[in-house]
């Protein structure tokens, strides 16, 4: 039923999925919360209300995706999002284990893979410069309690 040609507006369908699934999650995960009444709201009243509204919006968006103005999802390139996300996750994973200096270096090197036209030499130099500058700026100048080498 949802063959590619039936969906005229792709962004709308994507939006419908995002919002609809969130609304569903809100309802399902919020099931055990007490709803109470309008006059005496329980902790679940408002979240469930909002979840239902989200689902309603998602349904409207699905309808619109079938009959609305044709539109495609534009410009999805794999490189940027994959490498930026991996770089940030690496940062989160490494920072408290091996300290800021090396973490920053690794994060930047990985991040530069998100762009196509950087040579390996440029990567390393950039990573060295930026990680040094970060340590100087955040630990020494701004006095943030970050460990530079090694675990916290």
């Amino acid at each position: 039923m949802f063959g590619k040609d039936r969906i005229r507006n792709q962004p709308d369908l994507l939006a419908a999925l995002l919002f609809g699934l969130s609304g569903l999650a809100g309802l399902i995960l919020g099931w055990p919360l007490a709803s109470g009444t309008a006059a005496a709201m329980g902790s679940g009243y408002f979240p469930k209300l909002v979840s239902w509204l989200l689902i309603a919006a998602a349904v409207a968006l699905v309808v619109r995706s079938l009959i609305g103005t044709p539109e495609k999802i534009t410009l999805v390139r794999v490189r940027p999002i994959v490498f930026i996300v991996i770089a940030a996750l690496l940062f989160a994973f490494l920072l408290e284990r091996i300290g800021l200096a090396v973490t920053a270096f690794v994060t930047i090197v990985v991040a530069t893979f998100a762009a196509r036209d950087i040579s390996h030499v440029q990567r390393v130099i950039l990573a060295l410069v930026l990680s040094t500058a970060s340590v100087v700026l955040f630990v020494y100048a701004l006095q943030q309690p970050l460990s530079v080498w090694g675990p916290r």
Partner: protein
Amino acid sequence: MIENLLLGLSVAVSPSNLLFCLFGALVGTLIGVIPGLGPTATIALLLPFTYTLDPLAALIMLAGIYYGSQYGGSTTAILVNMPGEVSAVITCIDGHKMALQGRAGTALTVAALGSLFAGCVATILIAAWAKPFASLAQKFSSPEYFSLMIVGLVMALVLAAGSMLKAVAAILLGILVGTIGIDPGGSGYRYTFGQPILFDGIGFAAVAMGMFGIVEIISHLEEVHSGKQRIIPVGRLWMSLEDVKRSLGPVVRGTAIGSVLGILPGGGAALGSFASYAVEKKVSRRPEEFGNGAIEGVAGPESANNAAAQTSFIPLLTLGVPSNGISALLMGAMLIQGIAPGPNVMTSKPELFWGLIASMLIGNLMLVVINLPLVGMWIRVLRLPYNYLFPTVLIVCCIGVYSINNSIFEVLIMVTFAVVGYIMRKANCEGAPFLLGLVLGPQLEEYLRRSMLMGQGDPSIFFLRPISAGLIIAAIVLLIVALAPTVRRTREEAFTGS
């Protein structure tokens, strides 16, 4: 009003406040010039560091970043045809053409001076409107606040670029995410999965950085295919008498348009500049020049966007209701300092209120100096290839967001909402409504709960009280008007800048 402004000035010219003003102006211009890093992400980034600062200094700096970015964004728009800031998109059209005609210096000058005029007028307007707004708010109770927020959200919908339905959904999602944590009554744990780290909810600074900072980087990398851009030499910073004559009208009109549109919830700099361009084109005796280097096409929008950037603080400072993403973040900054935004701030902390307003005058003056004579500095920044900039932005975001609570969790939040923000972008959904929902959600719930308590579960309480009823009717009328076919077309035109 004058004594209040003088009080404000006396506080704003203290050495440390001046320093923070300068810092805000410089940072604002810098990020306005750099594509990909906008005022929202930057303010979010600096938010955690404001905890240790004096409240007035923090607000001065953050506000300076916002209207500073309007100045910086026009520099790139004129010289490189790349808007560093959303509101500068309009300036690209005629501003860059002027640069190509060898009149870059003139364009920069009219942009800066027009913005200065607008900034000063807007500051005076804020000072004049503050008391009336605040006294109106004295009559407000829970139902009125709830209705006001609904009006605000409706206006944010109407004035948002793109689909209103998606903006509604984004707001709702923001509200839902905002419910994560312990409920206001203290009894229920919502969506916390038993993890204590979630009891306080999801911090908006991390969310803002993910959705606006990281997503910008990713989007930019998807589009840009390296290559250095050609930067036009600036030439003389000069306006001929003819230029001045032609610019006067647009500057005044732009200031008026921007000041009004900025106050409206959901308004802000971008809308101001788009509306001004449309007006100038209609009003001009030489409409065919627009798009070919008409100075009016730079003077009007640049004044409008600066006026709007400043008046957008009025709802927050007087009513305690933020009208756009930036004021939502500033509200966050006030909350961090333990200041509850609302009509009382004006009377209980006059130095804070008037000091901030006075600092906007000072900031605008600083910005003219920063942007005109010192424009060479920014040109050097523009020459930096984006490949060097984006890792810098990324690592600064990561460290900054970690520093909020010395917690890896915040970094994970940032990444999560970067992904959510990316999906939303692909779905042609704006991020600002989400942020607005996230920040306003808890308040919205509280006012709803109290109103229902007052009305014993009967929703008619919103209609029985006159102010509240008026607000709700206004919201409904706005929605109907916005959905009317002719208005829809005008919206689309305004947002595609045609």
